[in-house]
């Protein structure tokens, strides 16, 4: 029976991709400027494992590598899910979490904090930002939310069509990009450097609290999206058919847009803009398990996590001991993979 065969196929991919993620996780923990042995890793992951662990190695793993690796997995999964949903609700395979202008809005929020030293509730000096490392993240997140509300309102007024949302996203991108450029123009060279570095996207900024917040956001949105997957499937058949299948298309599209925004805004606020994962992960996942969303969403999460973790590991190894911002690596690794998918024979299949 087709359904059962597909169901099994999806299960097989979940198992294979989970094992691959585990392998990448261990490799990523082990590799770096200082290479760690498997025993060191097992010591940390299994606290009851007999023997003594060097405190320096323990610190490297717990304070530096583990939060970075977990953040890569969570952010990758978030961007993968957000991309899958957006490509469906916007009826556009080129859509990604940044199509709706969230990256630009976040960047403006970050720029405001870096250049003017402004928090969202008032004006602060540079000293405040140094003391409060979350000022940039809070600003970035707040402006991502403002950008999202702007797009949602525009979309709601004009019937929530994919074209309206995309055009509103483009308008938001240009508006916030221009505002960010203005701030850069008046900023000092140190401030501009800090902002440029923030915009690269870097997982090295991640700490445990940020990992926890991003994980909670991912788990909540992932659960809601899974419950709504039949509605996403209905949208694949077109708005008119979806309506006659009992879906309130306009409401569904706005809810999905808000969920995708949340899935993007939280990671971007903490680690900056990381491109290509949200575009590439859904395409690879659709290639593997097809477009039915109850299969596609979990697979997109796994593929997104793997892509970002692989890119981050590479970013630490390519020019070691220099660590490249992962945002640069995702594009370098993503473009050839994307082109391969596009021009391979299998492209017809997805």
């Amino acid at each position, binding site marked *: 029976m087709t359904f059962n065969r597909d169901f099994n196929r999806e299960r097989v991919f979940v198992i294979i991709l989970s094992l691959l993620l585990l392998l990448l996780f261990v490799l990523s923990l082990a590799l770096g400027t200082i290479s760690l042995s498997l025993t060191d890793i097992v010591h940390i992951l299994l606290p009851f494992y007999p023997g003594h662990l060097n405190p320096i190695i323990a610190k490297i793993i717990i304070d530096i590598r583990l939060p970075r690796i977990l953040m890569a997995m969570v952010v990758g999964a978030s961007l993968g899910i957000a991309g899958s949903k957006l490509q469906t609700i916007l009826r556009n395979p080129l859509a990604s979490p940044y199509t709706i202008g969230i990256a630009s809005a976040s960047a403006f929020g970050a720029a405001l904090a870096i250049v003017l030293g402004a928090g969202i509730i008032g004006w602060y000096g540079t000293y405040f930002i140094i003391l409060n490392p979350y000022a940039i993240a809070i600003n970035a997140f707040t402006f991502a939310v403002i950008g999202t509300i702007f797009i949602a309102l525009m979309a709601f007024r004009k019937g929530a069509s994919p074209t309206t949302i995309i055009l509103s996203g483009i308008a938001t991108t240009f508006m916030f990009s221009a505002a960010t450029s203005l701030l850069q123009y008046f900023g000092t060279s140190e401030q501009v450097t800090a902002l440029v570095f923030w915009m690269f996207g870097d997982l090295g900024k991640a700490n445990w609290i940020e990992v926890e917040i991003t994980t909670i956001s991912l788990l909540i949105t992932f659960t809601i999206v899974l*419950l709504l997957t039949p509605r996403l499937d209905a949208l694949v058949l077109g708005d008119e058919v979806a309506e006659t299948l*009992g879906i309130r298309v306009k409401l569904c599209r706005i809810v999905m847009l808000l969920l995708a925004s949340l899935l993007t805004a939280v990671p971007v606020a903490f680690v900056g803009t990381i491109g290509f994962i949200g575009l590439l992960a859904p395409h690879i996942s659709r290639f593997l398990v097809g477009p039915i969303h109850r299969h596609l969403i979990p697979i997109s999460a796994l593929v997104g996590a793997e892509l970002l973790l692989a890119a981050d590991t590479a970013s630490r190894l390519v020019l070691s001991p220099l660590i490249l911002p992962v945002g640069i690596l995702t594009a370098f690794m993503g473009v050839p993979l994307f082109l391969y998918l596009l021009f391979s024979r299998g492209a017809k299949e997805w």
Partner: protein
Amino acid sequence: MVNIKIMNMEFSYKSSSALRGVTFEVREGEVVTLLGPNGAGKTTLLRCIARILRPTKGCVFIDEISLSKISRRILSKNVSYLPQMDETLYPLKVFEVVLLGRIPYMKIKPTPDDIKEAESIIRELGIGNLKNKKYNELSGGEQRKVAIARTLAQNPKVLLLDEPTSHLDLKHQIEIMKTLKSISKTKKISVIMSLHDINLVPRFSDKLVVLNKGEIVYCGDPKDIDIEILEKVYEIKFEVLYNNNGLFYLVPKTS
């Protein structure tokens, strides 16, 4: 028994009126064809019945229940709709397309009953050989059959079809029409469809509704229609031919 009643329906696109005082009834298991030139209001009428568009006046009743008073989900268990162009954003398999017709009954994923229902409709329509094929790789006729199977998976009382035979060759047109006629009788589904091929109407329809500029100009047995009404609506002259069963064929006069 009257299954569906359309009462005094009106609809306007901004300044232009698309439907005016449209009223007719459809009995259980009856096949009704909407005829009329482009812009007559056929698609608008079907969309209003499916509640894709909100009529400015009038209402639709199914078994005496007003459609405007029931939720969209309950409506989708009673009325299914096939648009003129059936599109899928990503290449779904035929079985997946048909199974999506069960969405009104689904919570998160299809139950074994949903799968059984989809399997049974695929068998009934004779498209079992296409089950594992990609929908976008099928011929136009095959796609239309699959789309009809998807609408039937909704288990509707009323089936609305917007030009189900468009872009199809003669063989596929006849196949689709035979299938619809047979389904309407065996499953007691009322079918309302728009067509452009006048000659299919007397062979496969129980009732003909001719629309012109948003108004009904004829409603009744297709065999009884005065050809002059059609000539007036289409603004061309027809040559009328009859076959051995007394059914007419209309051939447009070109000069």
